[in-house]
């Protein structure tokens, strides 16, 4: 059997193409990124930067970056920025925020960075109710080191150190970090979005906005987890990334708003995109079971409603 392969050069647009609109986010210093084709992280970056522009806070924002593939965004975001070590962004962000309490402070971390190396950092930062927004790019692998299991990898997931798939008996169970953080009294807003299709991107953008609005209202710790494709680390063809994600990570780390303070901004309620009544106050009891009841996911997880 012979498979025909062709290599499409992506360094420049095809000759027949012409630009019809300029949609580069204001806060991106370049249109290029250094990520793999099909990577979800640049989409999440775009969601984040567009939100900061729309909120008009770019000139009072400090970014604190973790270490993973997304670290290359440190050089492309037009934001004042502190580069932290692997796992350490929440403590660094705490120091920044305590010295600059009227500034918007956020972290960008991956699942390896946040849920493996720095789990206690994010848990305590949330518990302290630190007024920062943590953005997690969750792809269920250490992308940067080449596709190894993280604490969020799902059962059955093949990685370079779970060659036969993650086995609960041998490798343990995944951590649903959003659910964990939502149980803490110090967290004010917790949501899990995704960038695997246009609808998910739109919903995620509203979550990111609500997280920053929560910070601006001084409610406490806010958290948005964004599921991102990593076809390279999943060992799937680029085009299959979104579907693979939907079928695997998306089934365990289900999309939805996990916690919001009742006083959330009226404009967002009006949009109806994220029903706040789904988790009024989002108390610990909602999460005690460890499982997410379907009604806890307004609009459904990846399997339903994301295309709205």
């Amino acid at each position, binding site marked *: 059997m012979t498979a025909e392969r062709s290599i499409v050069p992506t360094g420049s647009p095809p000759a027949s193409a012409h630009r019809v609109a300029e949609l580069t986010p*204001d*806060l991106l*210093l*370049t249109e290029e990124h250094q990520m793999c084709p099909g990577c979800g992280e640049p989409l999440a970056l775009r969601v984040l930067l567009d939100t*900061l*522009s729309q909120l008009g806070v*770019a*000139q*009072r*924002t*400090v970014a*604190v970056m973790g270490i993973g593939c997304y670290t290359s965004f*440190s*050089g*492309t*975001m*037009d*934001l*004042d*920025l*502190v*580069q*932290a*070590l692997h796992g*350490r962004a*929440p*403590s*660094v*962000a*705490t*120091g*920044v*925020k*305590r*010295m*600059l309490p009227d*500034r*918007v*402070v956020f972290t960008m971390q991956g699942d390896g960075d946040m849920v493996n190396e720095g789990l*206690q*950092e994010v848990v*305590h930062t949330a518990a302290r109710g630190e007024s920062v927004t943590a953005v997690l790019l969750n792809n269920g692998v250490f992308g940067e080191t080449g596709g190894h299991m993280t604490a969020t990898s799902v059962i059955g997931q093949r990685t370079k150190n779970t060659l036969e798939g993650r086995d609960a008996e041998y490798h343990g169970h995944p951590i649903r970090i959003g659910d964990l953080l939502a149980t803490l009294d110090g967290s004010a807003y917790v949501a899990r979005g995704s960038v695997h299709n246009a609808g998910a991107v739109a919903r995620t953008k509203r979550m990111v906005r609500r997280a920053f609005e929560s910070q601006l209202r001084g409610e406490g710790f806010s958290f948005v987890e964004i599921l991102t494709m990593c076809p390279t680390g999943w060992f799937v063809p680029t085009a299959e990334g979104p579907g693979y994600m939907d079928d695997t990570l998306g089934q365990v780390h289900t999309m939805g708003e996990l916690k919001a303070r009742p006083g959330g901004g009226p404009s967002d309620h009006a949009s109806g995109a994220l029903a706040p009544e789904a988790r009024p106050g989002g108390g610990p009891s909602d999460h005690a079971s460890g499982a997410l009841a379907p009604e806890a996911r307004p609009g459904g997880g990846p399997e339903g409603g994301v295309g709205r």
Partner: protein
Amino acid sequence: MTRRLMEGSEAMAEAAVASGCRFFAGYPMTPFTELLEHLARRLPEVGGVCINAESELEAVGMAWGALATGARAATGSTGQGLSLMQESFSEITLAELPLVVFNMARGQSDYFQATRGGGHGDYRHIVLAPMDIAEAVELTQLAFHLADRWRNPVLVYGDYLLAHTAEAVDVSPMTFAPLPPKDWAVDGSLGGTSRSRTVSSLGVGKVNRPGGGIPAHFEAVVPKQAAITAEEVRVETGFLDDAQHVVVAFGTPAKFVRYVVGQLRAEGVHVGFVRPISLWPFPYEAVAAAAEGVRSVMVFEINGGQMVDDVRIGVQGKAPVVSIGGISTDGSGFGVGPLLDVEVIRGRVEAVVSGQEVPA
């Protein structure tokens, strides 16, 4: 000038406040705990913040964030807690952040950790070792100044005795030479202007102003070590003229040694002392000069023999180097052991002077 009776921990906390330190994060551990307690009380009074961090890893991370905004910030622990912080110590040095670290050590066994660093890479911290509370007040203030001057961490090496004994001291702010503005610090104001700033140990800037990249950054930061070595050596010496024996000691034990040497001199024994105040940069030249023509260079340190390595480097074989210190602690492992005693030290110095073996 007003002098007040204060424990060393309180005096060092007051000195930090007088230096303009406005952020501190730490995790309790004997004998560092009281420094944390005093700062937890004092910093909020002056508009600062002190956080009881969830671990030493977060304590140094929080200080990192505060420093990145241009604030004066510090952390501390004992050597054990500092062991946990080493990854950050190394990288924060490459990020050129002016961290001040207090090691309220359980003895003198952290000399290697302080001067060689337990972390990865080519980094050095300026290390200042006060011998008493009055000097700790000065060196704490100097530490904040030097950290800013060199954009390099400075470690203040204290210990149990310093932390827990009281002296009447004056903690008024000292004045130092003016410092350049912290134009590298982030305040969030330059987003979207194409002039946004990055504080990073990797030396990577933004794509529109990329900087030299990682290797060039390492090559740019590391030469500071030579400049610091040239300018920041601090040492006290005494009775070296016509000395036939020299005793080298640092920190609180050096005050005991200085007293013993003074006693012996009064009795006509030709002995002098060298007290490194900066452990890095180490006063190699002062040690070399003191070793010229003497019969022995003794090293009194309360550990298994660490500074003795630096003394040997300084002496360069010009005289025999003899360790007269040793491991000594109380039953708890935190405190002062029987070796830190004027009579015991005197006995050891006299033994070497008269050509006997040092008693074990």
